[in-house]
């Protein structure tokens, strides 16, 4: 009962935050509210037992997205949204109300929240819950479904992330004319001593935590996606405090580009190796002496590939955004 209570309160907070995001016009405030919005939804995911998802949302939504949006408003030098009076608001409003009403009508037939007999719980899910531990030897079912049972999906998603990174590089990576004397927001700030000292303490801890999340993801919440995001957040923090040049000395962009492709290559390479060993693509059972050992090794390698790819792509994206403002 207490979970339902927390659930309802968090949902109401999220709804209020969303309305505030819609109504405000100061872009900086909107982005900060969006960070809060993401963090609230991460808490809600944790309440609803989706620990891996909560983890990812907290790192991505409240961390990386917020930083990227801030970088965008710094680059576009836009502080406020222009409010136009001439806009006719009744048309979008009526479209939204009608669509919403139809969708709410559709939910009336849905099984109640938390119903163990709902169709979603009775088809493929019981198989994963019953067999995953036995077939892969890993306690975290999310990891075994992610990397093994639905390895194809995950491969596709890693490739999408990689492609988005390449596209951002193509759009913002090259040299460009600076129209006015755009000073780099990140370079300009001389941060205080306290911030630099605290960052120096925090960054190693964040990196160790990211490695823990990467390699303990088979047993507890975590995995390649989360670890990659947390690791890139550590370097982003470093960049924000010590400047872009210092960060590029730590990790040169050329190495990052190689790492991004390497991550995807590890993933696809594991698939090729399983074919050569006589199995199907991404069927890890053939990798080890026993089925379980093979699955375990395959999942570890694939998660490593995911971690490297996500880390490198997110960092390439951030450094490209930051480098765009460089004079």
């Amino acid at each position: 009962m207490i979970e339902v209570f927390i659930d309802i309160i968090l949902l109401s907070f999220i709804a209020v935050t969303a309305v505030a995001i819609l109504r405000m016009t100061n872009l900086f405030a909107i982005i900060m509210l969006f960070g809060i919005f993401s963090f609230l939804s991460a808490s809600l995911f944790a309440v609803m037992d989706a620990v891996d998802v909560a983890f990812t949302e907290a790192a991505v939504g409240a961390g990386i997205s917020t930083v990227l949006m801030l970088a965008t408003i710094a680059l576009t030098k836009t502080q406020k949204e222009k409010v136009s009076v001439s806009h006719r608001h009744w048309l979008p409003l009526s479209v939204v109300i009608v669509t919403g009403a139809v969708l709410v009508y559709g939910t009336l037939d849905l099984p109640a929240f938390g119903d163990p007999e709902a169709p979603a719980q009775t088809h493929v899910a019981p198989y994963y819950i019953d067999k995953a531990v036995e077939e892969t030897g890993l306690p975290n079912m999310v990891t075994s479904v992610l990397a093994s049972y639905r390895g194809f999906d995950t491969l596709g998603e890693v490739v999408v992330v990689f492609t988005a990174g390449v596209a951002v590089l193509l759009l913002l990576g090259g040299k460009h004319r600076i129209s006015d004397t755009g000073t780099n927001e990140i370079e300009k700030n001389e941060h205080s001593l306290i911030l630099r000292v605290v960052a120096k303490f925090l960054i190693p801890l964040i990196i160790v935590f990211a490695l823990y999340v990467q390699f303990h993801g088979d047993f507890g919440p975590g995995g390649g996606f989360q670890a990659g995001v947390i690791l890139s957040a550590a370097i982003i923090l470093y960049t924000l405090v010590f400047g872009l040049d210092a960060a590029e000395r730590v990790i040169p962009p050329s190495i990052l580009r190689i790492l991004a492709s390497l991550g995807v290559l590890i993933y696809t390479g594991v698939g090729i190796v399983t074919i050569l060993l006589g199995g199907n693509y991404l069927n890890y059972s053939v990798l080890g002496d026993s089925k379980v050992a093979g699955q375990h090794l395959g999942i570890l390698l694939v998660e490593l590939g995911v971690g490297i790819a996500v880390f490198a792509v997110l960092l390439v994206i951030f450094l490209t955004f930051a480098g765009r403002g460089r004079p």
Partner: protein
Amino acid sequence: MMDFIIGHYNYWVSIFLMMVGFYAVISRGNLVKKIIGMNVFQVSVFLLYISISTVEQGSAPIFTEGVELYSNPLPHVLILTAIVVGVATTALGLALVVRIKEAYGTIEEDEIHELDHTL
């Protein structure tokens, strides 16, 4: 009646968020605000999926001795990858916004349309 409301409250809030995001995308002219609206829409979809995966009295889908009832791991997998894909595509959208600003000098939709017409 009360059970019905509690049992469907998650879905209704998801739909409400979806519509707030949708409204921001179609009614606001600022491109950054549109992308934030898209993100709100995206989170509403995550919320819907995770609500569907929840099982009452269930535990997180990590095997523990003595636990019988687990939440559905499949939606968790789908959404966890969708979040990371979401930030990558958001970054792509933001990169386009930066390029539009460099080309047009504004990120307001109506001003961009005016500039297009005067060309």
